[in-house]
């Protein structure tokens, strides 16, 4: 990305700044639009209207909320463990934000084209567990602690099926780099991994059902990793007030929300890279047809954002469809169903990709 902007602007400082600020702006936009969309989607699914008063159809609601959060007094109870309590919201946001460094928004817009992209993303999202535990423990509140424990148990369990499915894709594509993975699924939808990846032959058609299974597994487990309903037991409002961030208010609370929505987009992006061609357009590029090649990266960014938002929409859709799972159900879904299926899937995909 740096090189691209350097070619575009010809200035080291400006291109560096753009590269640094772009993901942050993107995260903030994701949060802004995500929260608004969540309210609207939830409202319309329940035949309500959602926010309607602030701005046209409530479009300014989020800004109003944000200003309100900024104005809030920062209250912390005396019994909190001050150091951990203050670091946790920053760290949780760092974990969510760091993943954006490796996500390719288009062939030119990648924060860093590291070779081990997917591995890096899994690793930094592990940071979220630490900060959630920190938040829960330092708040000195039993609801927070319960929420944090549940969250840790849940995120760690669900990382296993996620990793197994990712592993099967890595076996198929032979690369850990997110950019290369998207590049391999070239610009038509029948080349996407969910339809067996690029290349023709028997293997492609054999792969399709197992890819679909893999997609379902990874979608469910990423849902659990971002603590979204039906896996929102760590922050279950009706049981634990707000789970691990019960004791937070004002901007620190906003950080947790920020990281939740940031994470939602990150996992949607990962899912779309793994199975749905990442930034690749499903129908070829306008830029190629019209012979204007500078258009292609923008088109790719458009398709990427569209896919990301679609999966966020599905997450919301699921949220307003399914009730929350119990802790034991949560664990049995993961250990008794997702992990065995993921293993079998991994082996079968391995055998097929050997063909």
């Amino acid at each position: 990305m740096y090189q691209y902007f350097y070619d575009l602007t010809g200035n080291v400082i400006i291109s560096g700044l753009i590269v640094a600020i772009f993901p942050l702006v993107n995260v903030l936009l994701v949060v802004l639009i995500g929260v608004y969309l969540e309210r609207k989607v939830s409202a319309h699914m329940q035949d309500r209207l959602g926010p309607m008063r602030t701005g046209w159809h409530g479009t300014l609601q989020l800004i109003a909320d944000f200003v309100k959060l900024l104005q809030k007094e920062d209250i912390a109870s005396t019994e909190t463990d001050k150091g951990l309590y203050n670091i946790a919201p920053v760290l949780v946001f760092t974990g969510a934000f760091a993943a954006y460094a490796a996500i390719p928004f288009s062939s030119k817009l990648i924060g860093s084209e590291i070779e081990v992209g997917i591995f890096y993303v899994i690793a930094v999202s592990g940071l979220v567990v630490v900060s959630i535990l920190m938040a829960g423990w330092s708040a000195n509140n039993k609801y927070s602690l319960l929420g944090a424990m549940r969250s840790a148990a849940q995120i760690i369990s669900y990382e296993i099926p996620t990793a197994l499915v990712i592993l099967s894709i890595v076996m198929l594509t032979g690369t850990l780099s997110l950019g290369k993975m998207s590049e391999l699924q070239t610009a038509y939808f029948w080349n996407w991994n969910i339809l067996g990846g690029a290349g023709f032959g028997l293997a492609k058609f054999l792969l399709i059902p197992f890819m679909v299974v893999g997609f379902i597994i990874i979608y469910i487990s990423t849902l659990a990793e971002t603590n979204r309903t039906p896996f929102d037991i760590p922050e279950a409002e009706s049981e634990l007030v707000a789970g691990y961030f019960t004791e937070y208010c004002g901007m620190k609370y906003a950080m947790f929300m920020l990281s939740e929505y940031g994470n939602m987009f990150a996992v949607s992006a990962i899912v779309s890279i793994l199975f749905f061609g990442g930034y690749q357009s499903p129908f070829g590029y306008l830029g190629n047809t019209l012979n204007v090649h500078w258009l292609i990266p923008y088109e790719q960014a458009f398709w990427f954002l569209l896919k990301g938002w679609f999966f966020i929409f599905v997450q919301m859709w699921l949220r307003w469809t399914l009730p929350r799972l119990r802790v034991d159900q949560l664990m049995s879904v993961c250990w008794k169903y997702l992990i065995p299926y993921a293993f079998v899937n991994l082996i079968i995909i391995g055998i097929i990709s050997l063909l």
Partner: protein
Amino acid sequence: MKAYLKNTWLGIYTVLVGMTVTFKHLFVPAVTIQYPDERLKLPERERNRLYVNMDDCIGCDQCSRACPVSCIEIETVKSVPGEDLGTTSNGKKKALWVTKFNIDFAKCCYCQLCVFPCPTECIYMTDVFEFSEYERGNLVYKFATLTEEEAAQKKVNYEKLQAEKEAQKAAAAAKPKTEPPSHPATN
């Protein structure tokens, strides 16, 4: 093993069924009524804030007596001869000045019992129901049309008349019994 696969299938299938249901609801028009902008039609016999049409009120005090919480306060002054108070819309002649007609809506329970006894049907329910106030005192609605000076004037007039009558009576009592009383003719 069979049960296991069946469970898996059931899990996925039921989620999909649920998702179709919610997806359909995405396109069902919202049932929300955006209250201050849109309003529901009020029922035909709704009971809201009272209104008194003072042109028709004859000051008979029936509404006040019917009120179970005594929130209507009425004071009247008799008119003096020669004053024309006009008639009500159903032809009754008015004989009393209504110097005070206060309804305290903080007390009113909207039972509508005051409406029925009114002989001229001048106290009735309107469709206004949004009249909250910050001060309880502002909920006392004054319906009397006379200004305070006018009301005081009417009182003075009446007292004068009373005094004149007293004087006449006293004069009549002082006179010898032989003369027949003459005052009814003047009145």
